[in-house]
């Protein structure tokens, strides 16, 4: 088994197409990283002023921001030449400060919203308690309540430092991983058919059992290596360019996840992204293997893979008004639990979202992982079935 697996891994890694794809991905990654770094540096903001206000949200800071904001607006109005238009003229310094003050206001707004949400939940829990007809709503409210209560207060922090780290997977990373998986795994089975080695394999002792297991394990290891390498490289690049500042802070401090109910830090969330992305991409890889096991030419699994992965893009047409009510929510759920949607991770964690499974609220991340595992297992069963029964007719 181990020997066969090594051979299968060697076969996956020794493909020219994969090397070319890897080089392309690395170049593109490097380019995008530098571009982002440049725009991060170009975005000038008053670091020193920000330092004064950075950190926990306090009453003093809120007041300071409110007053500062008023000052800026006053100045802006003074500078306005009234020639019929209302046109506020800010100077750069004011603009910078306004950004900072706004962030304070936003953070405060969020904190208030969260507190009132907690209150609201408490009330509805009280109302729903004991009512037998709405167990799901009750459990859901309780779950959200417990999660929100655990969250620490958000603070005021510079977000630009984390854009790069957390933006990769949901931006381009989920495509890169899928491309590498497609390049590596599309011809795991078709190669045997097209080279006509299939008949040597299928007539050998291990050719209908162990070889399939070996190919599947080799594919899992391949995906793992790809995911781990990407994760580590991205982390190191990120450390080098942006440092490690604030990575221990909760993700609610990052604007994208300000509404997230999950009590995890930025760096923990990066790990979660990598893990969830790996599970989704692996499940997708197993689907590719399944298609590969019934395809005569590598073109079929590759292009079907591309189409399938991007399916949500293709079916996302302009929705006619009369369809919006049912189509949009269904699409939203479909996208959240589809291979590419899960590989993007973001939709699972940005808000409190649950599925109703027999009256129990299942949080999106758990549901997504479960779905990926189930689909993965189905693919594996299909692979065993189809390769074993492959008839050599050519």
């Amino acid at each position, binding site marked *: 088994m181990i020997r*066969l697996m090594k051979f299968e891994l060697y076969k996956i890694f020794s493909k020219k197409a994969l090397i070319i794809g890897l080089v392309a991905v690395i170049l593109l990654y490097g380019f995008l990283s530098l571009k982002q770094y440049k725009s991060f540096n170009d975005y000038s903001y008053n670091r020193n002023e920000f330092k004064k206000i950075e950190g926990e949200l306090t009453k003093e800071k809120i007041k300071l921001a409110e007053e500062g904001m008023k000052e800026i607006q006053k100045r802006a109005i003074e500078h306005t030449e009234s020639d019929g238009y209302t046109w506020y003229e800010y100077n750069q310094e004011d603009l910078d400060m306004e950004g900072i003050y706004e962030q304070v206001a936003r953070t405060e707004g969020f904190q208030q919203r969260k507190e009132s949400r907690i209150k609201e939940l408490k009330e509805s829990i009280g109302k729903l308690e004991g009512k037998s007809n709405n167990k799901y709503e009750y459990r859901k409210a309780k779950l959200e309540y417990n999660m929100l209560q655990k969250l620490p207060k958000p603070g005021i922090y510079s977000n630009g430092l984390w854009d790069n780290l957390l933006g990769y997977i949901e931006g381009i990373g989920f495509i890169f991983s899928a491309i590498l998986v497609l390049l590596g795994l599309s011809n795991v089975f078709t190669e045997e058919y097209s*080279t*006509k080695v299939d008949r040597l394999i299928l007539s*050998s002792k*291990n050719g209908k059992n162990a*070889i399939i297991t070996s190919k599947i394990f080799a594919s899992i290891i391949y995906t793992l290596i790809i995911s781990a390498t990407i994760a580590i490289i991205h982390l190191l690049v990120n450390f080098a360019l942006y440092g490690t500042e604030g990575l221990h802070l909760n993700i609610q401090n990052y604007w994208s996840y300000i509404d997230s109910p999950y009590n995890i830090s930025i760096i923990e969330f990066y790990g979660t992204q990598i893990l969830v992305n790996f599970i989704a991409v692996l499940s997708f890889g197993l689907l590719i293997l399944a298609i590969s096991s019934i395809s005569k030419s590598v073109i079929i699994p590759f292009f079907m893979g591309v189409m399938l992965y991007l399916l949500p893009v293709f079916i996302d047409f302009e929705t006619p008004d009369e369809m919006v009510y049912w189509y949009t929510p269904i699409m939203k759920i479909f996208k959240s639990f589809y291979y590419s949607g899960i590989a993007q991770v973001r939709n699972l964690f940005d808000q409190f979202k649950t599925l109703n499974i027999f009256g129990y609220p299942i949080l999106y991340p758990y549901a997504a992982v479960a779905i990926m595992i189930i689909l993965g297992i189905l693919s594996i069963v299909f692979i065993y079935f189809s390769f074993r029964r492959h*008839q*050599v007719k050519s």
Partner: protein
Amino acid sequence: MRLIIENITMKYKDKVAVEDFNTELNEGVYGFLGPNGAGKTTLMRVLADLLRPTRGRVLLDDRDISTMGDKYRNILGYLPQSFGFYKSFTAHKFLMYIAALKGLDKSISPDKVEEVLDIVNLKEHSKRKIGKFSGGMKQRLGIAQALLNDPKILILDEPTAGLDPKERIRFRNLISEISKDRIVILSTHIVSDIEYIAKEVILIKDGKLLGVDSPENILENMKGKVWKGIASEEEFNSMKDDYKISNIVRKGKEIELRIISKDKPPIESIEEESRLEDMYLYYFDQEVEE
């Protein structure tokens, strides 16, 4: 060991390739003989667990091979008629891969690989990439992989295709050497490949079993059916559509003919000693049907 082919019928979509085929095989060499499209490859694929027959079954010592699974394939060696390799693998590496597929123990695999490479005379090419091999070398590598697991049942589909005469003789000697305690099935169009080594010849035509017999008996049956005679151009022209003529040698104005016929041909002719090739013509020449 007893391998029974029982009522095997194999249909491709619309084409019946093998029809109601029955025979029994024991240790020794069997030669599948039949014209192109007769169904030899199809039958061999059924025997190699690569095709599920439409009807019928194959039994090894009274056990259905389809339920034996890897136990059956464990004692199987198979050389397909058309097959391939990974071009970037060396001969050695490819055989190591097949050894792993066949479940050979890790400790004996390298020696075993060297051994079969030696048998097919490819030892000095063992570290070369298969992509650079000639057709005959690939064929020999195919034979080598079939032998790797010391198979009790060896199925060789046109094993001598592409081999030069020297390698062909080597192969023949190899087969007669190893066939004592195994079932060796080989298909060929070249009758001389099996003339001296086959225990029995299995004649297949249009997917059906035409007959099974030892080469000696077949030759015995052919006695009195092979003639040598001298014909003029006119005589030859009048005969050539009605008689199976296995050899034509022009000698000046006259033509020396080797004729396969139950009855004495209408020219001056003498009986010749029969050969297996004459039998092939006798059974399989389509154009002349009596």
